């Protein structure tokens, strides 16, 4: 479904991704782990289409050149990024925004738009997945939400938009154990044979809840090791020290 080949990204003189290659099949969940500053979040943003970077390399998504698409076209093609820091947008209602987003996607996919009633029914059903309160519907997007509420809202949006490729950027950061469980349950409920997920995290603990098929370790802008889920436990024991050196050695 997704093939990343020798992906480089820089901002000005600083090269953040230095040749990342990963391949992801439909139905798989891959974890990307690594210390702060290793380029994990940059990878997530580059895949979603953030324009701040100079990008070279190749990303094939379902056979098309992902890097040539605008962020909204990537979304229409089924790519979704759950943000590490979801943006607060005062004055834009959460549900209003989400219906606009869903209908934009549906339009681009040649489907009929959902009217307000049908959308509301869908939203209520999917909110249950992340144990979100109804009151979130009428509030402005992420405005005044706690850290945990923002992360739930990301997974709620994912449940509504039903992407094929979901990229979860540090979805566990800032969550207490209860919120982590709720968010992980939501993610697990969305696992499906047609859907691939790239789960980016600093800590192994998220992977206790969302068990990955593969684990990649990033350091210094590269993938320095890949393995099965046991690699995460190894990292938990020994930390990232040592790995970074591998990453920085050409």
């Amino acid at each position, binding site marked *: 479904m997704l093939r990343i080949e020798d992906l480089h990204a820089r901002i000005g003189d600083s090269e953040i991704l230095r040749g990342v290659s990963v391949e992801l099949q439909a139905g798989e969940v891959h974890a990307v782990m690594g210390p702060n500053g290793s380029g994990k979040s940059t990878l997530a943003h580059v895949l*979603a*289409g*953030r*324009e701040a970077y100079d990008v070279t390399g190749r990303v094939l998504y379902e056979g098309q050149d992902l890097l040539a698409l*605008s*962020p*909204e076209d*990537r*979304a*229409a093609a089924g790519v*979704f*990024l759950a*943000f590490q820091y*979801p*943006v607060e*947008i*005062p*004055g*834009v209602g959460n549900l209003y*925004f*989400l219906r*606009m*987003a*869903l209908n*934009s*996607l549906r339009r*681009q996919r040649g489907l009929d738009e959902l009217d307000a009633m049908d959308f509301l029914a869908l939203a209520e059903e999917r909110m249950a997945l992340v144990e979100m309160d109804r009151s979130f519907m009428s509030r*402005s997007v992420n405005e005044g939400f706690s850290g945990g509420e923002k992360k739930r809202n990301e997974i709620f*949006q994912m449940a509504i*938009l039903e992407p094929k490729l979901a990229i979860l950027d540090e979805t566990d950061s800032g969550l207490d154990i209860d919120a982590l469980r709720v968010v992980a349950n939501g993610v697990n409920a969305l696992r499906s044979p047609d859907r691939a997920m790239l789960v980016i995290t600093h800590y192994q603990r998220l992977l206790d809840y969302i068990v990955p098929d593969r684990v990649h370790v990033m350091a210094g802008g590269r993938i320095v090791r890949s393995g099965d889920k046991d690699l995460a436990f190894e990292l938990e024991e020994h930390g990232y020290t040592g790995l970074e050196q591998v990453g920085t050695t050409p």
Partner: protein
Amino acid sequence: MTTATAFLGGLSRLEPRPNGHHPAWLTEARRAGFGWVAEHGFPTLKDEDWRYTRLGPILEVPFQPAATGMGYRLSSSTIDALAADLGGTRLVFVNGHFAPELSSLTELPEGATVTSLASVLAEGAERLEPLFSRPFAAHHHAFTALNAALTEDGAFIRIPADTTVDQPIHLVFVSDSPTSPLLSSPRSVVLAGPRSRVAIVETHVGVPGDVYLTNAVTEVALADGAAVEHYKVQDEPDTAFHLGLLDVHQGRASRFSSHSVALGSSIARHEVRVGLEAEGAEVSLDGLYMARGDQHHDNPILIEHAAPRCTSRQLYKGVVDGRGHGVFNGRVVVHPGALGTDAAQTNKNLLLSDRAEVDTRPRLEILADDVRCTHGAAVGRLDEDAVFYLRSRGVPHQMARGLLISAFVNELVDRLRLEPLRSRVEKLVAHRLATGGEEAAKT
């Protein structure tokens, strides 16, 4: 002050002609207005209240005063399309003159008067004299003087004590200036009796492509306990010029609110002056300006706290695109003895292009003790993180920008209490956002 060749060269043309219907005091007032302009000329950028507005483009045009009885191309349905039908009483003024055949008068509470100023002046109306000369006398400038010299008509609204007018009164000022550039000088008077309530909507529109100048003065006097809402939608074509003054005088415990929406004109100036003249009066001024292309929108505001325990609020927001220029020049003066004054002014601006420009100048002059005054101003750009967030969810770029701009604007639009007007403004703003963005399209 400056002289302007085209304008002044033609000023003799502007000299008020004797009008058999006018009382002597009015003839005198017109002469005084004209004399003032001839003597002092027009303001320049050196004049504090005009420092942001270049008048050159206006003064170069040889405007003709719009005479009564000129023909026009407008019909009732054109007015509906240009200005909307808000229900209730609608007075239409074409080039500053009342057009009864385009107007609709609905039933009003007993004793309430809604008519044309010309008809009131024709009856003599000595009692109007102090009102008529006040806006010119208090803080005169060339354009209030010119309005005094040239005005023939406008709306006259009087609501008796303890009377509520349920439906808004819609004043439509439409210009139709097909051959030579016209100068319209409407003067409207609103007298709200003790504890009366009324909502007035002013819509200023014209025929696209026409060059004209609207120089409008509206005077509102609120007696004790009166409550008046004033709405102004300025949607003149961008070939036209608009200079407006809203002059408000408030009695004890009266409440006045104003909502100004500036979309049109090449150069527009929406001046508001409020005198809080007796204890416990409250005023709230909202303003939205959306300059783009080469448009210039200036908002000079003066609120005078002249009595104890009065409250004033200002919330002005600008969305400026292209090479547009927005100005907020808000001044609050707290006079000695105005104890317990509560004043707040806020101005926020969104710049949508690199060449857009905003000047913001909230000013407080406090000459009394025991007051609570705050002011704040902000100029910013669209939050690119928010734009990316929306796009990453599938919302197309232009729509994402529009959504964020609407969110910025909606704080003001949501405060338009009159439903048909709020929908109207929502449509105008949405249309503006959909058609705008010569800058947006590029990014």
